[in-house]
């Protein structure tokens, strides 16, 4: 019934518009107006609309910033993330003025140079100096951005020095959950092979490898020590997933058939971040950020950053791989 009514309403609306169109056409014929003509008044209205549209557009953005800006990601919880945030800020400081200036010019020109039959447009077809200027200025700006960007990228992607004291964790993805594997005391992850993946051995860890015996597998949540480099190894058993940890400005794809790497140093514990964000329920998360099937939207794991002491306590309370079999 409701569907029928909706259809009826749509039908009526369409008929009304069509009727209005034919009446409009008829009256313009009577008034002797040409169908393609845009009258002076109409032009002025449109020009004026541009003049108010552009500021409204700015206000719309500003309003969103004021209302939802506070829900953006808080300051970076990793060391390299601070560099990324700095680059972000610089890039925005270029984008925003350019955006405002070009849009203001657009609105102003539309308003100022609206059609007037007594005026002729200026025949201004090219000007080498101007064109050179707006090739060179963007080039210089971009050169700066590129250099700054590459410097940041290189430092973010550089591996942890071999001699450094670090934690190694494998994040293993499958439809639709995550498993974290810690290397244990020997700081070496045991070998694994996809053919060994069976119910109880979800990662296909090779138990004949001595390095594997003290490995620790956890689900649901995993812990990180604060201020210590963490090296992540990512793998997937089925389709591509992506390990995304937005608070740490960290992301890396998990690709079946290969291992990928990323590392960072957590900077604030979960407790500290709860305070910083003024949110008792705050938690770091790992989420899947590459389309992987029906439950892609709910493939997550909680991350807890704590003092090294608490971290060690937590880790020693977890089962070793060999013991769990």
């Amino acid at each position: 019934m409701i569907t029928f009514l909706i259809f009826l309403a749509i039908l009526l609306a369409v008929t009304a518009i069509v009727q209005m169109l034919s009446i409009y056409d008829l009256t313009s014929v009577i008034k002797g107006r040409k169908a393609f003509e845009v009258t002076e008044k109409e032009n002025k209205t449109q020009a004026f609309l541009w003049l108010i549209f552009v500021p409204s557009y700015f206000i719309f953005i500003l309003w969103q910033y004021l209302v939802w800006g506070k829900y953006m990601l808080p300051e970076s919880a990793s060391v390299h993330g601070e560099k990324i945030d700095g680059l972000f800020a610089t890039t925005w400081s270029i984008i925003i003025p350019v955006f405002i200036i070009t849009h203001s010019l657009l609105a102003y020109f539309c308003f100022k140079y609206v059609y007037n039959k007594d005026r002729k447009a200026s025949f201004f077809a090219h000007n080498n100096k101007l064109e050179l200027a707006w090739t060179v200025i963007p080039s210089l700006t971009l050169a700066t951005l590129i250099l700054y960007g590459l410097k940041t990228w290189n430092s973010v992607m550089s591996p942890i020095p071999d001699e450094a004291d670090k934690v190694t964790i494998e994040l293993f993805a499958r439809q639709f959950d995550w498993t974290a594997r810690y290397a244990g005391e020997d700081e070496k992850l045991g070998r694994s092979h996809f053919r060994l993946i069976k119910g109880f051995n979800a990662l296909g860890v090779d138990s004949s490898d001595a390095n594997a015996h003290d490995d620790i597998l956890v689900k649901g949540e995993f812990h990180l020590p604060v201020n210590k480099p963490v090296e992540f190894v990512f793998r997937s058993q089925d389709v591509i997933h992506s390990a995304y940890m937005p608070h740490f400005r960290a992301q890396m794809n998990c690709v079946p058939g290969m291992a990928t790497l990323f590392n960072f140093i957590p900077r604030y514990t979960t407790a500290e971040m709860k305070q910083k964000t003024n949110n008792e329920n705050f938690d770091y998360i790992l989420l899947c950020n590459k389309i992987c099937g029906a439950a892609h939207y709910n493939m997550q794991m909680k991350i807890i950053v704590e003092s090294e002491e608490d971290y060690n306590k937590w880790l020693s309370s977890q089962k070793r791989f060999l013991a769990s079999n």
Partner: protein
Amino acid sequence: MSTTHEEHSHHEQSFITKYVFSQDHKMIAKQFLITGFLMGFIGMMMSVLFRLQLGWPGESFPILTFLLGENWAPDGVLTPDKYLALVTIHGTIMVFFLLTAGLSGTFSNLLIPLQLGARDMASGFLNMLSYWFFFLSSIIMLISLGVEGGPASAGWTIYPPLSALPQAIPGSGLGMTLWLVSMAIFIVSSLLGSLNYIVTILNLRTKGMKMTRMPLTIWAFLITAILGVLTFPVLLSAALLLIFDRSFETSFYLSDIVVAGTALDFNGGSPILFEHLFWFLGHPEVYIVLLPSLGLTSEIISVNARKPIFGYRAMIGSMLTIAFISIIVWGHHMFVTGMNPFLGAVFTFTTLLVAIPSAVKVFNYLTTLWKGNIRFTPAMLFAVGLISTFISGGLTGLILGDSALDINVHDTYFVVGHFHIVMGLSAVFGMYAGAYHWFPKLFGRMMNHNLGKAHFWLTITSVYGVFLPMHFIGLAGVPRRYYSNSAFPLFDSFIDLNEIVSAFAILAAFAQVLFFINFVYSALRGPKATQNPWDSNTLEWTTPVEHIHGNWPGEIPAVHRWPYDYSKPGAASDFIPQTVPLSEYEKDEGH
């Protein structure tokens, strides 16, 4: 040439050869336009349907069950599988069917012969084939919606292994096979079209139509066609290898896979290879979508500002540069695939370079408006709208192209906001601008201005309402292709913003109905057009309003000047068509 055309126009054509299997470029243009718009309409409706789910997750909308059936939306709620199916087909339709075939197919076909002074395209037969292949691929894509398991659901980028394994997702069964078949046929259509455009532009220009006198529309079509010919075959090969992996157990893209509890025998392949092949087309594709719109609006802005386009040569140069750079930046979609960081650095460098020619284009547009004498026809409104979207969307590209920043925004809603504005909206605005501007040429009648203006203002308001908030949502870390954001307490703050986005999406869809009504009504009953309604310089406005085979009743006019002599000092009127010889006092500026 002109004698054969005499014979042609006299013999009677049957309905079939005139309207269905037509070889006339003007009819083929109309076929592309209408098919493209219909596909676009379907694609848009899909976005409205999945926006219902995103705006009000889990709430029951009987209309979903009504339109999609019990299987897709039991009790008025879309299932997660079918959410992904809709997103995938929406993206595919919009990028390829509406904005590649629909856009290039319409305006390249219509304008290349008309603006260059040719009787028709170089090969009318190939041109007809190009349309019918496109039609066939559209039909197959639509049929795939109804098959067991649903259509392809791995995203429009169809990354394997998700797209390769029917065990991984129901849409990777027959639906995916049909997607691949449809796209293979689509690519054939696109290649036939592009080759035809290139040959026609290079060979069939009328007397006096030097390359440097071609309107920017034609330059844009030429560069687009070349880009398509260079890159679409790579997508075709990517699709073929995927078909092999899917059906013949090869391992181009697959290795070490355990799915649904079973280890599969694939060994040695890499999904990353597919990503390289895909994006080798995929990135240039956004310019294949965008460049024709930039060409159309360059023309429309110049005509309606009654002023020569500023920096004609710089405009051509920047299009060539953009096209060239676009072939060497594909890796920016793969910064976080584990690629060598050095390679990432190279791709950051090339990607950010694109900003230079893009900035030149924007400044040239603005300067064209400066001291113009601007008439706001609906076409002009959309053209100016394109300048706005091109700026708004282009600037956020500086963030996504920078590998270090992309780490945190890759695959979030920030990307969705960015590419919809810079590619989706710009290309759609250009297409609408073109449709309004050349409607008199296509259908011999005029569209209604008032509806056109209402259409424009409603559209630009609502689409910005849809896509701007996505930037904020994305900066908070919300991933794209999520069925619902309710699984994360972190994202609850955006419930209301997501509702606003969805409400604007519904409004945007309604705004398009205004266009639809205007289009159909005007094509059938709109006021008759005059020969040159916009006082334009280009050649298409020297042909009669009624379409005739061969375009010009007599000789093809010769060309004596470039197309942008608007408001030339000393001239009596504010435009001088290309067919008017230079007068004594005019000096030849080398155009």
